[in-house]
């Protein structure tokens, strides 16, 4: 009997969707856009997080030298660097090389540097610390130790950027959560109103069902299935569109201001399931809200 009832519920819900295609299409379209925005935020947030994590796993450091440092001082600095565990000198950047690097970094805007050929960019050692898994490298300590040496002007390391960027990321997460929350409320509002419209268009039918002895749940379940169907279809449509946009734009790797390459990845299976489940849950919740209000009134 239970299976028979559920067949009836599904048949009733789907026939209502097919009998009111326009209203359901508009609703599914609007929810899809909301879920698409939600998914895009998730994708962006996930990739930025991954990028920062990968970046943080290797520590790079630039030791800028004062103007006119002699070779002896340079040798002392070099040997001091080599004493740090895991330190590897990637190269020594001369003033000319620094200018070339800057021009390359500026690309088409390199013309801005015309007439500044005489500008003295500092020489620097570029070093990298590999394998920081045991956390034995303390960049702050190395920085203060090197900056005390004769001939060293300033030491900068990649994690300073990461620390600054993590602040931006925290803000991004808060804004993302707020926007995600608002999108969820919007989806709830859309679904509950669509179902409310179909309930009102069928209120005579509901009244007759109740007069025939139908229980509240007998009337409610098809509307909840309607909401769930809207949510499910919208979630799947949003994922398909997000995947299409990802494939078409094909921004698989972005090189930003000479920072480590961002390898853009699509949402994981869990992430995709999360979007579909969220959309489904919002659909059922929207159905609950509208049918609950109807029965109350």
């Amino acid at each position, binding site marked *: *009997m239970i299976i*028979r*009832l559920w067949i*009836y519920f599904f048949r009733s819900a789907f026939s209502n969707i097919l009998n009111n295609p326009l209203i359901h299409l508009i609703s599914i379209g609007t929810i899809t856009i909301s879920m698409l925005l939600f998914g895009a935020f998730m994708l962006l947030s996930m990739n930025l997080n991954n990028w920062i994590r990968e970046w943080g796993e290797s520590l790079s450091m630039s030791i800028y030298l004062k103007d006119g440092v002699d070779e002896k001082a340079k040798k002392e600095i070099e040997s001091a660097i080599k004493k740090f565990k895991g330190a590897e000198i990637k190269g020594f950047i001369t003033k000319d090389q620094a200018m070339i690097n800057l021009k390359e970094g500026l690309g088409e805007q390199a013309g801005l540097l015309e007439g500044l050929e005489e500008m003295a960019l500092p020489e620097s050692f570029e070093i990298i610390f590999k394998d920081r898994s045991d956390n034995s490298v303390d960049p702050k300590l190395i920085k203060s130790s090197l900056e005390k040496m004769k001939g060293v002007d300033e030491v900068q390391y990649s994690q300073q950027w990461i620390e600054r960027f993590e602040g931006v990321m925290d803000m991004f997460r808060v804004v993302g959560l707020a926007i995600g929350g608002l999108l969820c409320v919007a989806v709830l509002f859309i679904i509950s109103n669509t179902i409310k419209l179909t309930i009102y268009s069928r209120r*005579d*039918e509901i*009244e*007759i*069902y*109740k*007069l*025939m*002895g*139908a*229980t*509240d749940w*007998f009337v409610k379940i098809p509307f909840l299935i309607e909401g769930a169907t809207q949510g499910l279809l919208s979630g799947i449509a949003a994922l398909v569109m997000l995947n299409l946009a990802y494939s078409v734009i094909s921004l698989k790797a972005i090189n930003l201001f000479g920072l480590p390459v961002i390898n853009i990845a699509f949402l994981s299976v869990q992430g995709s399931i999360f979007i579909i489940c969220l959309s489904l849950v919002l659909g059922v919740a929207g159905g609950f809200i509208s049918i609950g209000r109807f029965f109350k009134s």
Partner: protein
Amino acid sequence: MIQLFKVCKSYGTNKALDDINLRMRKGEFVFITGPSGAGKTTLLRIIFGTARPTSGQILIDGINLSRISRLKLDLLRRKIGFVFQDFKLLNSKTIFQNVALALEVTGERPGIIRKKTHQALRAVGLSGKEKAFPLELSGGEQQRVAIARAIINEPMILVADEPTGNLDPDITKEIMVLFRSVNLRGTTLVIATHNRELLKDTGQRIIALDKGRVIEERIG
């Protein structure tokens, strides 16, 4: 079968029913009559459980309606058929679907629903009209559909509110014959009407209401 004790029903300051005490036996055929606004429809709605009394008690087959849960009331309603003056048919559904609806809500097997729906339509003389829609039928035929839907569950009580109010005299007679046949099968019938012609020489119990009070009880 139906017992009302000191039942009162008010809508604001307006008393629709005032101190009603009634008892209707199993298999009885009862007419409720009175002018418009006498409280006939309110009395039927209270028996059917779609309205709750302001005070007093109603017992249907020993079950106190004022102490029953919403779910149990829904289940009890399956044992009470209701025929409305405006038929309350779904115009978007066929005659067959309209009648079958009363069994669908009970979760009955499709095979049994088909069989009983055909039987009910045959009983009211509408075989062959299964695929028609309500608006394709005459008023009398639509009322027959409503009766078929009300009797399909073999109810212990059948309540009808002005069932012939919109019908011409010939069709009214046909409908009354149909009600008598339902009553002969053991169903308690309660019919509200203000049609005096209908009450002539019925040999049935007639309860007259006025301003929410029982003013007369007699055999017609």
